[in-house]
């Protein structure tokens, strides 16, 4: 089975995020860059499917040259090769533009299955997976926590608000991962050594038949970034006993905060 994983490099979730001087991007100096956590689930699931069904796992990314680090980590986990569509830093892609670039690249890559994270934890757009499937004219299933492939048919259990739903479709398909699908493996030392020799193809937009002038005009534009109003520590509820504290907080929530 030919599997492609869509992977994005993002700031680690424990990073503090600051706004750069231009007011529309973030400070990148002190940021620790990692594979988007949901994409890590995607890499792991792809490797498990390959282990069960044979085939190969390719990692496809859109990003600056720095993204090679994240692709290399996925190769160290066990993926076979990487493809990076190089979009220089500063060229801002919105979700739809990214999906256009990915789908153009995928027209030249054989695949039966595409796996992506349900969202990237930087933009929080939830958009790239389903939009890429639409551009490729294939079905998608979002937020999958369990999948099974038999005879070209895939059955997925996905989360919905308040429960789970089981859906079925034929390959080729794109599905997105939800927390709970697996526990991603760590890259082993031999894995890291092997990854150094695995191929990573660097391509430009022109290489995949896109005109950067027309594709590169996003329909959405960030006009300003700000940090949310800082929450300040409030009142510590004092009391001689737990009972007194409990009574006091309920009284405050009822009478002052008026949330009860």
């Amino acid at each position: 089975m030919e599997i492609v994983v869509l992977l994005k490099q993002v700031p680690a979730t424990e990073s503090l995020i600051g706004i750069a001087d231009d007011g529309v991007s973030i400070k990148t100096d002190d940021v620790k860059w990692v594979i988007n956590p949901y994409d890590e689930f995607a890499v792991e699931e792809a490797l498990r499917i390959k282990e069960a069904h044979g085939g190969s796992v390719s990692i496809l990314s859109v990003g600056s040259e720095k993204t090679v680090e994240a692709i290399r980590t996925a190769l160290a986990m066990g993926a076979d090769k990487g493809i990076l569509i190089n979009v220089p830093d500063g060229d801002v892609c919105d979700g739809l533009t990214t999906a256009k670039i990915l789908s153009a690249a995928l027209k030249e890559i054989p695949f039966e299955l595409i796996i992506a994270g349900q969202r990237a934890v930087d933009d929080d757009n939830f958009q790239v997976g389903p939009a890429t499937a639409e551009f490729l004219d294939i079905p998608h299933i979002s937020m999958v926590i369990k999948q099974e492939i038999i005879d070209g048919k895939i059955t997925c259990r996905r989360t919905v608000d308040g429960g789970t739903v089981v859906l079925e479709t034929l390959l080729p398909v794109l599905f997105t991962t939800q927390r709970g699908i697996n526990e991603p493996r760590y890259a082993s030392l031999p894995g890291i050594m092997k990854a150094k020799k695995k191929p990573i193809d660097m391509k430009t937009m022109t290489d995949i038949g896109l005109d950067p002038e027309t594709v590169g005009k996003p329909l959405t534009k960030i006009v300003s970034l700000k940090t949310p109003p800082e929450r300040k520590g409030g009142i510590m509820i004092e009391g001689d006993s737990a009972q007194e504290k409990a009574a006091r907080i309920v009284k405050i929530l009822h009478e002052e905060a008026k949330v009860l």
Partner: protein
Amino acid sequence: MSQNILAIAEQIEGVFRKVTFEALSEGRRIADQLGGELNALVLGDNIENISKELGQFGADRIIVAENSALSEYLPDAYGNVIADVIDKETPDVVILGASTQGKDIAARLSARLNAPLAMDCVAIRFEDNNLMATRYMYGGKILADVMLNGKPQILAIRPNAMTIASAAGTGVVEKFEVNTGPTLVKFIEKHLDTGKVDLTEADTVVSGGRGMGGPDFAVIEELAQVLEGAVGASRSAVDEGWRNSSDQVGQTGKVVSPNLYIACGISGAIQHLAGMSSSNVIVAINKDSEAPIFSKADYGIKGDLFEIVPLITEEIRKLKG
């Protein structure tokens, strides 16, 4: 600049989601501001009766797409029908709730229509004739103002972020002739936790963290129950296997903005704070007076949660009589 707005409603088993009323109310507000129509679209099976309700939130026309093939949400069937309706109605703005289903529809639709999308927005305004959406990024650490260019402009609004307002709309129900077109995704089965309040729509969320010490969340569940709220969990509680990952609040889980958030035994890692800091009132209960959560909470209580939480539950029971 008159703007016609189409609100896509979401119903589960014949009951509209709260976020649907929020989307309609916000749609009405935009339509009134700019002089346009607000129409609602409802998809499903046996839904004509419930559809009238949308008139109370300002819908002028209520377009009903009724078909047995739409009884369950399927991304391709729903996508095809919604695209047909948009083709016919040519709305300037499409607004819907950023629920799990709404996000899925919005994403696929943006590609189908080559239309700008603001996902999970918390505020919408007009500036120099342009629609501007405010949305969180980086799991709540950053607020971005996003300008949308193109038509239709798709707005998926975050549950609990916008107010519901009753408004008299004409509320005329009309049927849409459904053709689901070619579809590949099939529904097999579903499992819904009945009676459970959805985390993202709950007015109150009570969460437990590492301080729970194990999978027994009974004290948290009882407090959530008297408050008719939902139970959440920190990432460490989920990683320990004490709670299902669908309960996780934080940057790699759900982002919640309830009226009241009660954090029990949660130290307040930055990735958790990102997921709940837009709550209206935050209460933190923790043994450790140095826990970072206290610096973000409106009210802090230092102490043993297993002792304090049941007493709070009792006090609230008394209050509610």
